[in-house]
């Protein structure tokens, strides 16, 4: 049993003792690789040193203005992108019907947070012989202040909705749309 193992071991040792033929170009190739890697390290070190060194920078006013304009342009572009995304979010809205009884009115507008308080944006339409005025508006989730503007001059709160605190001496109402 042991003899056989010794035999195997001896053969392995003999095999290991045999001289190995090396590639004659190996040394040269290794040295080239070492030189290359050291060159790369040198290049990085030089850049790092350059970045860390304090130095004076002189800029022409025109260049500075151009850079500022470019920054402003990027900021504006980002802002436009954001507001476009906001407009896309309006798809998630609830349609609300606003109704006012105003038999003697010639025009009635719905004016509020949802139309930038612009009387021209949402005119109401007369129904039932012109005594009732109505309009439907898609509203996003939230609490919206609004009022009716009768004949372009008279502000009325919605009698069918809760009143909003009056900050400007003319009544407003509120409507809340769930999210």
């Amino acid at each position: 049993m042991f003899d056989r193992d010794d035999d195997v071991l001896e053969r392995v040792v003999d095999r290991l003792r045999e001289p190995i033929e090396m590639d004659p170009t190996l040394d040269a190739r290794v040295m080239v690789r070492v030189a290359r890697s050291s060159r790369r390290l040198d290049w990085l070190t030089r850049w790092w040193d350059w970045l860390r060194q304090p130095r004076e920078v002189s800029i022409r006013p025109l260049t500075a203005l151009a850079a500022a304009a470019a920054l402003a342009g990027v900021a504006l572009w980002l802002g436009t992108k954001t507001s476009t995304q906001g407009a896309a979010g309006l798809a998630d809205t609830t349609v609300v019907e606003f109704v006012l009884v105003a038999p003697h009115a010639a025009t009635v507008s719905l004016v509020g947070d949802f139309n930038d308080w612009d009387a021209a944006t949402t005119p109401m339409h007369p129904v039932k012989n012109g005594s009732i005025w109505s309009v439907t508006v898609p509203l996003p989730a939230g609490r919206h202040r609004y009022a009716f503007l009768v004949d372009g001059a008279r502000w009325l709160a919605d009698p069918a909705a809760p009143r909003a605190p009056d900050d400007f001496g003319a009544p407003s109402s509120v409507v809340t749309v769930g999210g």
Partner: protein
Amino acid sequence: MRQARWLIALGLTATLPRLGAAQDPRLERRLDSATFAALTPVLDSAQASDLPLEPLVQRALEGAAKHAGATRIVAAVRLLATELGDARAALGTGSTSAELVAGASALRAGAHSSDLAQFRRRRGAGVTVPLAAVTDLVTSGVPPDSAVAAVLALVALARDDQIVDFRRAVERDIALGAPPAAAAAVRVNAAVREFSQNTPGNQPRRP
């Protein structure tokens, strides 16, 4: 010295777009120059505090539409900015603009900051409708403490539409002559009984 001058100039040019963002073109169009100039620092300050600007712009536009004077418009916008800040402190920095507007209204109606925080704790996300209901109940004549207690009792049990139905029922009772506090108490007891037996999780949601 020359370097310092350049640094200041670069700093100013970098902040220009940020300041400009608060100058909404809608305000420039609709406000006179004096009101616009007086309002700009208020909006810049709100923007620096990361408050939502749109509700402030809308309040200014409301003032312009109603032909209010500069002092009144600036005061209203400044007050709203303060209320939005208070609402955010109570509801948390992750609150939506709609939640902050509803929270600001509830604070003005008489709710406390601690009440707003309780709404957030009990409901988690989506406190706009409950806070708006508190404000509307107070507007109908329900004392602020009773309104807060009533809606807080429902906030974990009821959906938004059920809270709106509750608020409408109380307003109807008040219009028919019921004392506001009593109307709120009677309706909230009935609603709590109903919703406790039939929890929201077991009911199909409306489309």
